[in-house]
């Protein structure tokens, strides 16, 4: 079981020590991902999704960032104590990342072919010529004609650039791909093309995927599992069916109720009240209680993960009461 895990994070804590106080970005996050699976990390701005992703590659800027972790292993190898040289070998080779903005992720002074080839050349024992040949293959794989390898990023449109970024990320056939809001900057029809591309490439190379997004719709399209984050903690995680059809946490419920329903346009939205908490000054206990319609005294105390089923966990103390239910109906 252990060896089958591509990623194993135990009790990750990240804080930024700034002049304005200590920003608690990630607070005791545990996450496991099986090989070949894909998980969606969902949450709103400031929930700590990106920081979590950056900690996996030890890319959190230090200072001001302080990362503490009981266990952080990638494909069985310990990341925390790994020397930086070895880590650099892993970045881009075993784990690669796609960033939100394709406009700034590419270097404007190199051709796209050179940029893909560079990544291959750095990580694999191949000649320049071989790397270039494989770069062209990669381009064609993501749907760009190979002859455009000699063009510069500014000659590509937004969607095309994101294809190039995906090509670079997948050039060395990584075991784990971290996609940080890869389609947020793109139009809907282009987003559909991109999701299709990521899905088919993932099947081809059986890459594991962490999809960071704020859009539950994208998660439903592309992930097997979901972890919902709020104020630096995972408050609910499970398979797609667990979280979407048998929602347990009040915050997840609130998220679903905030999305306009395509099938019932007259329905008034029920947004979550209030605002996201200040991470320099988080509420005690469950960080969501000041906004939660079900909050009571228990919620101000330390929260534990409560097991609903083998796959489904929720961090909400109210489930210790036997007959606690939220309003959202279960769909079987």
């Amino acid at each position, binding site marked *: 079981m252990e060896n089958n895990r591509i990623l194993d994070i135990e009790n990750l804590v990240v804080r*930024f020590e*700034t*002049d*304005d106080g200590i*920003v608690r*970005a990630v607070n005791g996050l545990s996450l496991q991902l099986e090989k070949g699976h894909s998980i969606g990390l969902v949450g709103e*701005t*400031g929930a700590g999704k*990106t*920081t979590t992703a*950056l900690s996996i590659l030890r*890319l*959190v*800027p230090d200072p*001001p*960032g302080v990362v503490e972790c009981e266990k952080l292993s990638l494909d069985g190898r310990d990341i925390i104590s790994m020397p930086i040289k070895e880590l650099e070998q892993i970045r881009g080779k075993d784990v690669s990342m796609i*960033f939100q903005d394709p406009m*700034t*992720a590419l270097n404007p002074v190199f051709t796209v072919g050179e940029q893909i080839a560079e990544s291959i050349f750095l990580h694999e024992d191949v000649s320049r010529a071989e790397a270039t040949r494989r770069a062209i293959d990669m381009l064609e794989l993501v749907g760009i004609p190979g002859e455009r390898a000699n063009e510069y990023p500014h000659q590509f449109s937004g969607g095309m650039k994101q294809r190039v970024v995906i090509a670079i990320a997948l050039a060395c056939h990584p075991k784990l791909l971290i996609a940080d809001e890869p389609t947020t900057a793109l139009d809907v029809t282009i987003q559909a093309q991109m999701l299709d591309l990521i899905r088919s490439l993932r099947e081809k190379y059986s890459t594991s995927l962490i999809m960071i997004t704020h859009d539950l719709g994208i998660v439903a399209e592309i992930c097997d599992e979901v972890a919902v984050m709020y104020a630096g903690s995972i408050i609910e995680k499970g398979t797609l069916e667990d979280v979407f059809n048998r929602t347990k946490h009040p915050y997840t419920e609130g998220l679903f109720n905030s999305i306009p329903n395509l099938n019932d346009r007259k329905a008034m939205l029920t947004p979550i009240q209030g605002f996201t908490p*200040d*991470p*320099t*000054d988080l509420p005690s206990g469950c960080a969501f209680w000041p906004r939660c319609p079900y909050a009571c005294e228990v919620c101000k105390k330390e929260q534990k993960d409560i097991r609903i089923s083998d796959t489904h966990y929720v961090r909400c103390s109210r489930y210790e009461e036997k007959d606690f239910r939220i309003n959202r109906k279960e769909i079987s």
Partner: protein
Amino acid sequence: MARKKKKAEVSGQKQYKKRSIAAEVWRNYKKNPSAMIALVLVVIIVFVAIFAQFFYDFKKDIVKQHIKEKFQKPSAEHWFGTDNYGRDVFTRVIYGTKYSLSVGVVAVAISCIVGVTLGLIAGYYGGFIEDLILRFCEVFTGIPSILMGVALMTAFGQSIGVLMLAIGLVYAPMYCRTTRAAVLPVRDQEYIEAARVAGVGDLGIMFNHVLPNALSPIIVQVTMGVASAILCASGLSFLGLGVPIPMPEWGAMLSEGREFMRDYMYLTIFPGLAIMITVLSFNLMGDGLRDALDPKLKQ
């Protein structure tokens, strides 16, 4: 990338803390030790410039000659020694602060009024007006500033007022271009359009929205401008075109002391040091302000 993300997150959290923009700038400024030293020096210099005239009498202490005591070396009595007319150099350097600084400040004020207004108009309206103003600035900057000063001084006669005007006009194009460059990105912001939709006129938008948001580079330019104006004024005085003798302007003192430099070095060293310290303080303060106003630049 990572840094940017973090910044965004941090600024997202600051939302609940109340803090005005000025306080933020001051907080950043304090972190820079050389800028803090410069600020202290500038405060002292300004203080001296304002109050020196109450401690010394112009006729008695500054211009009255004591031929018997000429060329005395620095001593307990005369800290900086005495010059060829037996006047105390220390008193004259202290008193001269007033001239140097007022020339600097007034000249910069003139440059500002002319340059900032033109730059604002050029940046805000764009098109033909912008081209016209910019070409005009280019022609102006093509002429060496000392030459320009010399020409104006000879045309209008030698007085402290003309000196201020001459230096002010020489530096005006610089302010014009700085302002225009600062206005351009502000002009395209949505809040400018929002003001237009709200029914605010062009003048209102220019002075209420555009100028305050384009102010930081102008403030920096002003601080550094005082330094260059002082330097320019000293240069002109050194050439005998600035503040008329016997006023104790630093450049003029340098010029007078130059004849005796071989034997009495201190006659030139002290006014020279005064110029250097003042210019350096203003420049360092400008540097510090620039970093404090735009923290992105530093990182």
